[in-house]
């Protein structure tokens, strides 16, 4: 049943438009394995996309230096995913024209959803490295889509532990500022659930348009509401703007971020970073693999890597290792391999694996807290970190969504 439309589409493709593409396809079969990297490189998530691209390139070069994938060279293609429509069109082009074995990347949850639909239809592999929405691991999960990036539930529960320790949840009333798109809506839902389960509440919440750069009206509203804690569910360049203006207005309410990217704190400038935030990885982690990655990245790009770089670097490495171990680039075999609980080194204390139920990478997270302004002397080392969450003796599933919170049934 499902085979039929594919054959006709391929026939039409060859017959009508693929005179140019055909040589590329036959060429790709033999000596190279292609990964199509697709992530926002412009717009409000563009600042993060750059780290993603650099890290993916670094990983691919390391794979090739170590002999490639079963002797075949790994070739990376790079595209700007722009928005969900463009992301969908480019994903389709990667698969049909460039014949990539796998798509890696994305940051926007809305675009990742669109790519998920394409890979479902085309039976192609997609490793999501930056989209957090729980829905991508729940109602919108896909058999061929895997998530190196943590889900919103993991972010909230990881930083939530640090916030509980600081006494910022129980009996406290929060004011939430939330990015008004798929990611933010999902995060607000998860954050609200967490607050309520732990004896706190979100008293007021504002949805903020993603193109908003001036937060001053919201600073006045925060001052008026006098919350016990300000919950930041923003994304991309907005976080930088928020930090700069929060410090400009001299507000003193504790800040708790539920979504975060380190590069945005670095971009805020001296003394402007404050609050407690969750992250999948940061450059101050003290293990040999992390130090090596930080040194290599720094040497090549003149700045330390951050969590987004970590995601894309590991995604490329995981795919390359899986295909090498399997001696095959067949997407369905890779899916089976990843679902079997294969372990991967992801530059942390513990190895990580994908959960078969929803394809989420099970790995530790960290809560980072801004140093006091006067101690932020180095442009990058501006925070202190908690230990790994969950701790060494706990199951990695301790912070991930439970089956009740996000149910995934892979569509066939």
């Amino acid at each position: 049943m499902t085979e039929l439309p594919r054959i006709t589409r391929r026939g039409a493709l060859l017959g009508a438009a693929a005179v140019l593409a055909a040589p590329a396809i036959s060429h790709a079969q033999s000596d190279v394995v292609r990964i199509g990297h697709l992530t926002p490189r412009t717009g409000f998530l563009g600042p993060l996309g750059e780290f993603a691209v650099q890290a993916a390139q670094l990983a691919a070069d390391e794979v090739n230096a170590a002999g490639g994938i079963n002797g075949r060279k790994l070739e990376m293609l790079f595209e700007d995913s722009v928005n969900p429509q463009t992301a969908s069109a480019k994903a389709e082009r990667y698969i049909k024209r460039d014949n990539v074995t796998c798509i890696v990347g994305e940051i926007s949850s809305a675009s990742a959803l669109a790519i998920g639909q394409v890979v479902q239809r085309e039976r192609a592999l997609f490793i999501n490295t930056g989209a957090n929405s729980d829905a991508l691991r729940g109602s919108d999960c896909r058999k061929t889509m895997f998530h190196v990036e943590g889900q919103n539930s993991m972010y909230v529960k990881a930083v939530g532990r640090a916030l509980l320790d600081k006494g910022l949840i129980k009996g406290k009333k929060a004011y939430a500022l939330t990015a008004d798109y798929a990611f933010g809506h999902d995060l607000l839902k998860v954050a609200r659930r967490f607050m309520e389960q732990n004896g706190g509440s979100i008293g007021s919440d504002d949805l903020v348009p993603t193109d908003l750069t001036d937060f001053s009206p919201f600073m006045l509203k925060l001052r008026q509401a006098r919350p016990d804690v300000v919950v930041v569910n923003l994304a991309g360049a907005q976080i930088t703007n928020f930090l700069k203006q929060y410090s400009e207005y001299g507000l003193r309410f504790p800040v708790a971020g539920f979504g975060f990217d380190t590069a945005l704190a670095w971009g805020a400038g001296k003394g402007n970073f404050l609050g407690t935030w969750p992250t999948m990885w940061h450059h101050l982690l003290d293990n040999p693999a992390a130090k090596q990655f930080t040194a290599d990245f720094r040497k090549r790009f003149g700045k330390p890597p951050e969590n987004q770089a970590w995601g894309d670097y590991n995604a490329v490495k995981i795919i390359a290792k899986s295909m090498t171990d399997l001696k095959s680039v067949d997407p369905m075999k890779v899916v089976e391999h990843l679902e079997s609980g294969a372990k991967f080194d992801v530059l942390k204390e513990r190895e990580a694996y994908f959960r078969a139920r929803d394809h989420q990478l099970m790995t530790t997270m960290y809560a980072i807290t801004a140093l006091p302004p006067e101690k932020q002397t180095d442009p990058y080392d501006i925070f202190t970190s908690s230990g790994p969450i969950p701790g060494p003796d706990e199951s990695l599933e301790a912070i991930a969504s439970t089956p009740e919170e996000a149910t995934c049934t892979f569509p066939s």
Partner: protein
Amino acid sequence: MEFVFLFEQVLNGLLIGAYYLLIALGLSLIFSLGGIVNLAHGAFYAIGAYLAVTLAPYIGFSGAFVAAPVLVGLLGIVIERFLLRRFYRADPILSLLLTFGLAMVAEQALRMIYGAAPVPFSIPLALRGQIFIGDFLLSQYRLMILAVAALCVIGLWLLLQRTYFGRVVRAGVQNPDMVGALGISLRPYMSAVVAIAVGLAALAGVMLAPITGVHPAMGAEILTFAFVVVIIGGLGSFWGVVLAAIIVGVVRGIAAYFFPPATEASVYLLMLLVLLLRPRGLFGERIAKFE
């Protein structure tokens, strides 16, 4: 109590209006005199911000405050002389394509030089702080922006209304052929107008760099708003643009207060409303050459 907070938002909106003003005025000037819709105007704003970040470690924020607009003004003269000048009398679509291309080149150049991640920059220590007037909270730094913007507006108005330079420019807006027939070449005036216009955009970039993310797409972010201000104010109208900038700031503040998801959309709704009631904008003039 409710009213006090609303009033605070209105006051804050006046401050925000000052942001858009410096960019919108330049945009309006270039369009009025040259007939060019300058889609690259936001790029000059971004370049101003990046220059501030680059120069401040050497000459301080106050040094950059002067140097960046001057440098960008000089860049404007070069671009006017070699690019814009060819398109004053051409089909507007050509200058649209040219300036759109320039904007993309500038954004990508910034990305290649400085990287896509925001570059750090903070308010100078001397200008930090808040002012409390009764129940109201005002940012000291934003008051400074307002003061500078007000000085620029007054200076520009005096330049256009009270000097020989201004008379020629205003005559050139209405009837360039007659100005030519009187033996006055508009070319040097056009260069000067572009230099002033992009210099003001750069000044806005310098002043906003400490309170907004300095990243390559920042020019594109602010340009749309500047256009909306010019359209609401009415093309060719100096005070129309000033009034529109203030109204846009206030409407935004009120929208953020009552219905935050529409903070940005409210401004476009306002534009729609104004255009329905007054198709030329609030104080738009009939400019013979564009009819």
